[in-house]
């Protein structure tokens, strides 16, 4: 029972990171119908830029407290990633907006590998230790469950960001324009929405969220690496599909469900397979879920309007 509770907590933490990344996928997909393959790599860039920024701050302003250092590093990385997201949209995707659909998809794969290569050139192939500015020593166990301050921070920050995003999309002018663009580009632009701007904004917001997710991911595991974006990216995409792609609530739900399944599954896979499989097969769950969802319920848990797109 304690394992179950512990894995549930771990799953929620990982799941909320997936959810943040999944939001980026789902927003872009909702508006452009494009799977932005490079989204996972933006997470990676976010983590590595934050790492670099924190290193510099610690070098030049060692007196700054831990939390201000982290926040400064985080803001730098969010800004860099927003700029990156904008640049990618502007240079690669915008020109292909009216191109047949396989073209932007292949371009996105290319962008993903380009980002990885550039990161490899800048930061090398090695794993970097990510500074643990928020403590990772577990707090006093509650009901036998250990939770670390960094995990608490991840849960709180992602919850806040998700609420903020929902408010942005549902309550503001920008959000209304985004929904209109997702509904129908042409009509939205006839109603005076500058769709180019809205699409760019979507990429910028998504990239910002991915940067935050990257910093969280690295803070939790204590490492950063040029290829670290691939798996979380793929899992977040799975989460987005699981929840119903194009649907914000779905992405959040999908992220949490996926995190839970994965972490609880990894805890029990050895017993379930009679010792044949072990936790190194953890990554398989995401793909299995993706396959099952796409085959049996391609609209996802909460999706309804995408039936024709699957």
């Amino acid at each position, binding site marked *: 029972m304690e394992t179950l509770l512990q894995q549930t907590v771990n799953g929620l933490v990982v799941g909320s990171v997936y959810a943040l990344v999944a939001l980026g996928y789902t927003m872009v997909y909702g508006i452009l*119908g*494009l*799977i932005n393959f490079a989204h996972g790599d933006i997470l990676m860039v976010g983590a590595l830029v934050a790492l670099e920024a924190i290193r510099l701050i610690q070098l030049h302003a060692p007196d700054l407290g831990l939390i201000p250092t982290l926040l400064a590093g985080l803001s730098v990385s969010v800004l860099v990633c927003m700029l990156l997201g904008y640049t990618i949209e502007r240079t*690669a995707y915008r*020109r*292909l907006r*009216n*191109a*047949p*659909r*396989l*073209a*932007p*998809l*292949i*371009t996105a*794969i*290319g*962008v*993903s*590998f*380009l980002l*990885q*290569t550039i990161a*490899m*050139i800048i930061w090398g192939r090695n794993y970097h230790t990510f500074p643990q500015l928020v403590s990772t020593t577990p707090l006093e166990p509650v009901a036998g469950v250990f939770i670390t301050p960094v995990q608490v921070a991840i849960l709180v920050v992602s919850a806040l960001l998700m609420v903020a995003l929902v408010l942005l999309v549902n309550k503001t002018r920008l959000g209304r324009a985004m929904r209109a663009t997702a509904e*129908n*580009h042409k009509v939205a632009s006839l109603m005076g929405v500058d769709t180019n701007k809205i699409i760019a904004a979507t990429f910028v917001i998504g990239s910002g969220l991915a940067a935050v997710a990257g910093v969280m991911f690295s803070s939790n595991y204590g490492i950063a690496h040029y290829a670290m974006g*691939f798996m979380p990216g*793929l899992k977040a*995409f799975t989460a987005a*599909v699981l929840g119903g792609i194009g649907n914000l609530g779905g992405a959040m739900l999908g992220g949490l469900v996926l995190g839970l399944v994965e972490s609880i599954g990894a805890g029990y896979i050895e017993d379930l397979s009679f*010792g*044949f*499989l*072990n936790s*190194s*097969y953890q*990554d*398989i769950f*995401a*793909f299995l879920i*993706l*396959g099952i969802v*796409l*085959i049996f319920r*391609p609209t996802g848990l909460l999706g309804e309007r995408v039936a*024709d*797109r*699957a």
Partner: protein
Amino acid sequence: MNELALAIPWLGKRHPAAARWVVVAIALGAPLIAILFGKTWVRILDFAMLYVMLAIGLNLVVGFAGLLDLGYIAFYAVGAYTFAFLASPHFDIHLPFWIVLPMGAGFAALAGIILGLPTLRLRGDYLAIVTLGFGEIVRIFLNNLNHPINITNGPQGINMIDPLVLFGWDISRPVKIGEDITINSLFLYYYVFLAFVVLSIILVQRLQISRVGRAWAAIRDDELAAKAIGINTRNMKLLAFSLGATFGGVAGGLFAAFQGFVSPESFSLMESIAVLTMIVFGGMGNLAGVIVGALALTALPEVLRHVAVPVQQAVFDRVILDPEVLRMLLLSLAMILMMLLRPSGMIPAYSRYSRPELVVGKAAGEARK
């Protein structure tokens, strides 16, 4: 055979016969020229032939039938590991290659059907992601199936795989003619691989203009219309998937025999992407383009390796971009730039059976928003 001539577009258009002979001469003479630059280059040519086979197979799936498969390298892995299991000291089984190779091809085809059955009703980008996931699952299993029972030997891979033995003739040993001429086994492998490539080309070309090939083109261009005129789209797509996989399986078996060693590392996502880039670069749906793309993108990184590394040494006193990085850089840039600037590839398809703008266009199988 017109497509062969088109591999040299400027000559092929006016003098197809001449162009055809030039292509044949290049294919036969390439290793003789390559050896002038050293044995490594013959080895690279051998690998280039394997990539050509992979590209031909993937083109069948992506270019002809319009199904974007990002896990294609998994079939290559199935072929390679089948060969490794059945012809190496690992399980101490040593079957002859003319049994193992077809088995590898068969298992790859089976894997194609297993993957295809549930997923082929998905369209476009979803199919891409699911196949990508499949590729990763295969790699994860190869990496971890070394305990509790050792099947794949994990990340270390399997070595000492039997070489190709044709009619009792071990082609991994150099052949001596007279006293001073020895033919390196790299040459022998090249011509064996070339034979397989030629066979594949003939097969695929016949397929393309057959009823099946036309059915694929119809599905690619408009799935709904294809269904309406009575094409069994599910079976046709499955056929494309498993046939494409078969090519991958054969290439994998040849790879295992040639290299004598397989490990999961050779079957990463990057390789799937590399093969995809080759066909995108050359011209999706067009055999000549695909072959040229495969040759160019196998050779180019190697040329860069031999040029860029010494240049960097001379200029910066150290190597900033190592060859692997250069290859990734080249492939990713090729993919992006081709899509932005020349989406139908270096040698666009010309016949009425293969129109790349439609390949790229309707593979998602739906009207744009």
